[in-house]
């Protein structure tokens, strides 16, 4: 392996991690802090991607598309919270799972009725569509670099909001004891709605940024949702820091597994055997990682409360 390949793969791991972080952050906010398992998070991600695609193709500007998607998805998220999800806060996790799974099905079908079953077109903006030469001889896709930048910025912003602002404290207080927070003067309904909007906006950012790399299609939220859950569980629920570390861990382990495992196995077992089991092993790796982390730390790496 050449050094450039190693650096490129590390960047890939970081980028995959940050990508997952965008989703996991919203999920951990809603799940950890509001104690609500929201499977429909993946649907908001999908809506964000579709809105970006639609507005981008209508206006010709990707960034306009992203902006519109963020606003649109946040509004849809808040509407969803006010109409349905609000009823679920007091319910147990299982009811939340069932109800939000129902929402996934509904949203999928609605999206399919509006946009059709085929994937829709969404490409990276012209300026970012090619590779950039970081140092002579080393090129990396510009859009993925952009993604890394956005991921870091969002992470910093979230850290600040949740850990350093009074709003962050209110949210955490409201999550642990809603009634008492109200009695202390926190306008809890409004607050949760806003937080939900923030989570939805993060989904839209993730959808808009991942859309051009992955494809924009019905059901795109489900598979990635599981990964996002893996991330927040590894990191410890409710912790933005945990989500970030968990996301990076998953990203890097997954990347390393796919990049290195076949090589290692090839040395150990020979080419044929390596291609035979390499794939399965690489797929198992992140689940193995999660199981190991939980075995060692049953509440994840950075549990927010215990």
């Amino acid at each position, binding site marked *: 392996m050449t050094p450039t390949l190693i650096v490129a793969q590390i960047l890939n791991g970081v980028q995959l991690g940050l990508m997952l972080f965008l989703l996991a952050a919203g999920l951990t906010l809603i799940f950890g802090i509001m104690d609500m398992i929201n499977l429909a998070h993946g649907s908001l991600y999908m809506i964000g991607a579709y809105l970006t695609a639609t507005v981008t193709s209508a206006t010709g500007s990707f960034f306009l598309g992203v902006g519109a998607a963020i606003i649109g998805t946040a509004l849809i998220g808040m509407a969803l919270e006010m109409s349905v999800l609000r009823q679920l806060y007091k319910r147990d996790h299982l009811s939340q799972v069932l109800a939000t799974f129902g929402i996934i099905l509904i949203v999928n079908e609605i999206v399919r009725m509006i946009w059709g079953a085929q994937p829709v077109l969404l490409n990276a903006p012209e300026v970012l569509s090619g590779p950039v030469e970081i140092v002579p001889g080393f090129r990396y896709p510009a859009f993925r670099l952009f993604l890394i930048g956005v991921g870091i910025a969002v992470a910093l912003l979230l850290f600040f909001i949740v850990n350093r602002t009074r709003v962050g404290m209110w949210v955490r207080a409201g999550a642990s*004891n809603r009634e008492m927070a109200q009695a202390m003067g926190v306008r809890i309904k409004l607050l949760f709605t806003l937080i939900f909007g923030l989570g939805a906006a993060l989904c839209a950012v993730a959808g808009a940024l991942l859309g051009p790399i992955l494809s924009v299609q019905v059901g795109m939220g489900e598979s990635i949702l599981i990964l996002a859950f893996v991330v927040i569980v590894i990191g410890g629920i409710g912790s933005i820091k945990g989500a970030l570390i968990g996301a990076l861990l998953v990203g890097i382990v997954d990347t390393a597994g796919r990049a290195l495992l076949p090589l290692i196995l090839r040395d150990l077992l020979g080419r044929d055997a390596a291609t035979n089991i390499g794939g399965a092993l690489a797929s198992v790796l992140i689940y193995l990682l999660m199981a190991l982390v939980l075995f060692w730390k049953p509440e994840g790496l950075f549990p927010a409360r215990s």
Partner: protein
Amino acid sequence: MTALLEVRGLEAAYGASQVLFGVDLSIDSGQVVGLLGRNGMGKTTTIRTILGLLPARGGEIRFCGDRLNGKPPESIARMGVAVVPEGRQIFPNLTVRENLIAFAANRAAVPDPWTLDKVYALFPPLAARERNLGSRLSGGEQQMLAIGRALMTNPQLLILDEATEGLAPLLREEIWRCLSRLKAAGQTILVVDKYVERLIALADAHTILVRGQVAWRGSSEALSADRTLWSRYLGV
């Protein structure tokens, strides 16, 4: 003197079982009132209804002349009512410091408001545990935190529901001293507590509840003079 809090004919219930049957209660500005009664007579329920945590089935609650009935708890809190609730209800996932500063306010623009430093001075153990999560405090420390948290909102009306429960004797005395100082500073307070002697020393007037109804009302002098009240209504 105007009545800061005026409760008339208050009725409340948990589901089908009615608990309050027409409670009257009035607190003037600057006054300290004790609410007494045996276990389960409806003291906490009265407080919860005033705070808007439980809907009033009947009667009327007025604060500074405004009707509170039907208002959500957060609005009532923002009008200047703060509570030290039964069972402390500390936010376990906030640190001690965060529990204190998250809700700090001075809406009535009190000239010499409560600050973090003043609360820490009142309860030194809190200062030492500043960065601990609320869930990691001993029972007594949580109680101090609950009082501190309420003071930090600089309320017009402070409600204490069994605020000395679980406190060591020294600290309990400290709380009583603190309440007298608050009173001296003009704070209006509604207190529920089981230490009748201390309450008599502190409060101006008392209301005794029996099964959700007012059984007796009167001044501290009257209560301390008539020991039969104690044994009849309070089981002392």
